């Protein structure tokens, strides 16, 4: 019995060691090289981290603002409409991200809107909207209508009921959506340069170090910092989820 279990686990373990543990170890080793340490001393690195962080925060916030009403509306529709609307939300995934970004650029160019950080944010928001809408929808849809009625019955205006009941009870969805948007946006590359060549983010810099400048040490150092940030955020999120006792 135990032998069979070990045999079953052998393949996935080997896979993980080969494609996760070894590359990560190699990455860490390269990060602590002379090149890596030098890259961290460069002010441009921290400027890019700061820009990425700022863009990720703003895009996530805008995504949340746009998505909440949409998710709320869908959750209130009849089951038939819900299915159709959710399908429409997921539909853009059938097209490649680059193709969609090109299309958006063609829309923004005539408006004189591209080539700005704002345009990058707009592109990011539209690309990541489904990642925010879907978790929000699933937690709003689970919210019992009775609780909103109880709040109104006790004297809460619809706005007050929203802030004191709906928002706290859909916090798991809000947190999940924010994580799902924030983390990929923080490390994104290619998309920002498409929209505005002068607004690179940290992901673009990593790409540059690895692909063009052949400086894997510097690329690894930045990647490692990005990984630590991501893992910390995910860790905070799962702790929050546990303390809420919801979901």
């Amino acid at each position, binding site marked *: 019995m135990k032998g069979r279990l070990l045999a079953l686990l052998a393949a996935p373990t080997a896979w993980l060691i080969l494609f996760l543990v070894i590359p990560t170890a190699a990455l860490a080793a390269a990060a602590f090289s002379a090149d890596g340490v030098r890259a961290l001393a460069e002010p441009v690195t921290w400027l890019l981290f700061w820009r990425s962080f700022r863009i990720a925060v703003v895009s996530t916030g805008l995504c949340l603002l746009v998505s909440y009403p949409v998710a709320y509306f869908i959750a209130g529709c009849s089951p038939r409409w819900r299915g159709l609307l959710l399908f429409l939300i997921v539909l853009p995934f059938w097209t490649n991200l680059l193709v969609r970004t090109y299309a958006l650029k063609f829309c923004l160019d005539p408006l004189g809107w591209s080539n700005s950080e704002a345009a990058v944010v707009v592109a990011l928001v539209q690309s990541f909207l489904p990642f925010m809408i879907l978790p929000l929808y699933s937690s709003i849809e689970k919210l*019992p209508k*009775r*609780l909103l*009625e*109880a*709040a*109104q*019955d*006790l*004297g*809460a*205006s*619809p706005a*007050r*009921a929203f802030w*004191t*009941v709906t928002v*706290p*009870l859909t916090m798991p969805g809000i947190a999940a959506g924010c994580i799902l948007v924030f983390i990929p946006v923080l490390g994104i590359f290619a998309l920002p340069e498409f929209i505005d060549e002068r607004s690179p983010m940290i992901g673009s810099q990593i790409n540059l170090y690895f692909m063009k400048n052949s400086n894997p040490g510097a690329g690894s150092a930045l990647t490692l910092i990005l990984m630590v940030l991501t893992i910390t955020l995910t860790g905070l999120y799962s702790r929050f989820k546990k303390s809420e*006792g*919801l979901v």
Partner: protein
Amino acid sequence: MNDDHDVTLRGVTKSFGGRRAVNEVSLDIRRGEFFSLLGPSGCGKTTLMRIIAGFESADSGVVTLAGKDMAGVPPHKRDVNMVFQNYALFPHLSVAGNIAFGLKIANAPDIEKRIAGALAKVNLSGYESRAVTTLSGGEQQRVALARAVVTGPRVLLLDEPLSALDLKLRKGLQAELRRFQRELAMTFIFVTHDQEEALAMSDRIAVMNQGRVEQVGAPEDIYERPATRFAAEFVGAGNFFEGSGDGKTFRTKDGLSFDAAATGEVVIMVRPEKMQIASGAGIPCRVEEVLYQGASRSILLKAGDRRLLVEDANDGASARVRVGETTAVSWRPQDGLVLPR
């Protein structure tokens, strides 16, 4: 409108998809009264309550609360609170947080003191910091009650608040709820499908059927003098005889006859506990089944093709009947209640 009436309904009608859930309902609910809306599921009692709370709006008719027309007044501006069927406690708030909810909106002073007072009234002192999700059904019910009354609403609506609890707990809470209502002297509108519960607790009952009110009255009126066949059938058990009378003798379609002061084509109903079994005078019948129930015996009789139910108090006075025996059943003429067909 009368000052003594907290809630008045005039011709209130509400349809859902062409079906009239509430049909021309007119009621006057007095100040400080324990008023029950009683009926089977789907009779419109919950819809009527939701119209009073403001969660549904009537298609036509007038609802007034303390003399004021409630047309267009949203739920949060009505001086009415509700205890929901499954309590609808806020899972993200503690017991104290739930009770404080309405007080905070009203900017009430001494919130903590009032929470403690409300908890004491429902026998949950010291429960302030508990999470509502860890409470038992009975405790959640009490918290819901405390949350609804702490702001001192004019009228409290209760939507089958005891139906989710087990029988023993329910019996205990009936008496407690009645005492609670008397102490508060608050108008309670209690929705239930449980006729025993309505009889035991109410000052007055409105029996509802298919969106209409069939009868309004004190529990004794409803049970002893039902106005319609539905009211007689829904509240308590009964033996029904369809036929015609000449003022002295009543003849049923299946050939039975007995004394009754009924004239014309009517229905006569006799409650099972008002019937006596004694060989000799009365309607001859055969004992089909005897169900011993401790305090009483339910005796199923067959008179011709007709089945009769007799409730025989276990007071040692009546002789024991045996299954298969031939005997006779009789009742005092005044115990035969005359109902319209």
